[in-house]
Structures are given as structure tokens and as C-alpha cells.
């Protein structure tokens, strides 16, 4: 994340003194097993349903 924050600062998406924003971005990545399962399984279903449409 540190490298991405530096790229964001260079691209003026972020100011280097935005400490509160940087703190918010530097927090641990929240992951969730149910979110992971649903994202994978429902996306796969959608891909198959779209294939039928086309």
C-alpha cells in the first residue's frame, strides 16, 4: 500500500500531509470469507448466464 500511496501523491490524488487519509488507507485490509465465496460463486454463475445470452 505504501507504494500505491506514493503513486497517488505523485499523481496529485493525495497530499503528503493528508495524515488522516493516509491512516485510513494504511489500516489492515478487511477480508471476509463469505464475501470471497459469494464473489467467486455468483460471478461464475453470471459468466455462464451471460454466455447463454450472447
Amino acid at each position, binding site marked *: *500500500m505504501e*507504494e*500505491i500511496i506514493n*503513486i*497517488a501523491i505523485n*499523481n*496529485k*490524488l*493525495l*497530499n503528503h500531509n*493528508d495524515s*488522516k*487519509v493516509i491512516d*485510513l*488507507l494504511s*489500516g489492515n*485490509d*478487511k477480508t*471476509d470469507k*463469505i*464475501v*470471497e*465465496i*459469494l*464473489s*467467486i*460463486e*455468483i*460471478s*461464475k*454463475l*453470471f*459468466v*455462464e*448466464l*451471460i*454466455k*447463454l*445470452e*450472447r
Partner: protein
Amino acid sequence: MTDSLLNIINIQDLQKTRKPSDSITMPKQNTLVTVTILERLELGVKVLIDGKLFIAIINENVAMQEELIAWVTDSEKFELSLNLSNQFRENSNYILSEINTRFGFSNSVSANKILTKIIEERKPVIKSKVKLLFEYIQQNQLKLSDSQIFLLINILWDEKGNSTNFIEELFENILSEPFENVCKQLFEITNEIIFAKIPSFIIQQINKTVYDSSTDNVDALYNKKEIITKAVISLNNYLTNETLIGNRDVVEKYVEYGTKYILQKTILQQYNCYPEFVIAKNENELILIMLEIKKYYSNSGEAFYNIVFKQNAIPLELKGIVRNKFLSGNIIIDDEKLDVELIRKFQQDLKQNWDINSHISFNQNNDSKQTNRSLENGINAFA
């Protein structure tokens, strides 16, 4: 000595609170009250309602001295709920009208849209925060997407003070575009950049974001942030180290939108919102699927998930809720394209691989139409 003097105010008497047995002055059950939270005590919360002190049971945590709207869920125990989402589902017009009247807000469409979002997000309706939100949106003439309103509410409600400086910084830069737009832009750029004259190892990294059902590279469905992070860093190094770059515009755009995607997704995740986009390969074309999963907690602390999957090019949408390992969903689909066997297999996979039971219903491109078919798999965990 002082207690015996008639003209000396007895502070203890003034602070005497009304108990549930004092039924004459007690707010009725299943009504709204305007409440100011004064102090957290061992056995409850000292609150002020219509100028009178009460001890109430409030499970939610909110800052002291704030004026807010609460629902009397139990007048005997004098239990108040600051989450109005259940009552809102039953009578939204009444709730909105009461909030506007009690807090002196205009009963406008835009104000009601914001209030609706606050309640749907199960946030307490805190007068100072709502007022600040209205003023901030009005002063900056912001037209916000649902995901931007979601973030604005969550960030503002988390802020201890009532300053908007931090929010202004965020919305001027990282959050200036809705997440959906960022994903659509990234999808368009991906379509271009995979044919650009850039080092092949970077093209390979970007190709990892494209889901191909023949190889079943599921990382493209879930770990895309990690893959895009690597691609953005590689492209940024390439931009820094090379002077003669063909397709510079496309490369710069990927870095810009890839960075926005990573930063926005990181912030959204902090608030239990998991939006994503899927780029899927279908023969010679790429297709885009948008999805959003939000995690909430019920008053009893149980987690549940609201899910929405969309495909803009064709009428296809899935909305559902997952609670206690049970998915209850509805698919909006062109009835002629409906493949029941495919959905049955999806349900079997969910059950066999993840022990998630499901009930899927279908209707025909219209939420209001009656469900015409449904598929059940496993035991209904809601029962």
C-alpha cells in the same frame, strides 16, 4: 444544614429520573422520540426527552450530548433503538416526515434521499451530523452516487468532531468519482492496454485480472486488488524509467484509475462494503459484471450480507441476502434465457463446497411482478 433551607434547590431532586413505573410521563411503545443522550450509567443511559430525564436501555454507542431520533421498542424496560431500519421498511413516509418536523429539515426529495440512506445503513439519525451532511452537499453542490453517499455517511459518523476538512480532502481527490465509474473506466482501459506496446510481463499481469472460465482463474474474481496493485506499480516504474513510450495516454490512465480503484476499495472495505467488478472473457470479447456485497450486524450482533450483482448490457441482476449460511436471492432475467439447471448446479456447488443453503426465485425484469418460479436447496435457515 443547607437541605433544611427552603429556598435552596436540591440538586438530587432535580436529577431524580423517571422510572418505567411512572407510566403517565413515559413515551409510548412503538413511537418515535427525540432524545438527547446525557450520560452512560451502569444500568442504562441517562437521556433527556421533551425536557424530562429518563433512564433508558440503549444498546448502540453514540456520542454524549447529541440530539437524535429513537424508537421506543419496549416501554416497560424503556428500551430505545437508534436503528430505525425495521420501522422504516414498514412506514418510510411517516418516519421521514417525523424526522423532518422534529429537526426542522426541509421535506425535499434530496433531503429524504439522504435520510433514507442513513436509515438503511442502520446509522443513528443524529441531528448535528445530518445537518452537517446536508450543508456540505448543498454548499458544494454535490451530485453523489450511492457509493459516495454511503462513504460520506460512514466517514462523517465516525468523525469525533463536526469538521468536514478531512472529508473535503477525500472527496476532492480520491473519492471525486464514484467507484462504479472508476471500475467502468478501468474495464475500458483494460480492453485497450492488453493490445498496447508495453513489456509483455506487464500485459501478463493485467491479463490476470481477466476471468477465463476455461482456466477458472478465480483470483480474477476475488484478489483483483492485489493483481491491479502489481500492475499499477509495474506501469508506474515503466513510465518513470522509459522516455519513449507508445500508448503513453493509456498507460497513464491505467495508473490513474488503477490507483483510484485500489484506494477507494481500501476505504470502502473499512466500512464493510465490498464492491467489485469482474472482467470476464467470452470468446473474443470482454464483459463487465458489477457487484456489491455489504456486511451488516443485527441488534443481536449476528452478521448478514446484502448482495447485488448486475450486468448492464443485458437484463440480468441478482439481489439477495445471506444470513446464517443461507442465501435467499432473486434473479431478474429474461425468462427465455433462464437456465434452471445452471442455477441448480450453482446451488449444489454452494451447498457441497461451502455448506451454504439457498432459495433462488426469478421474475421477469420487474421487481413488482410476482415470482414465477423458485428453486430451493437445503433447509431454510430462516425458519
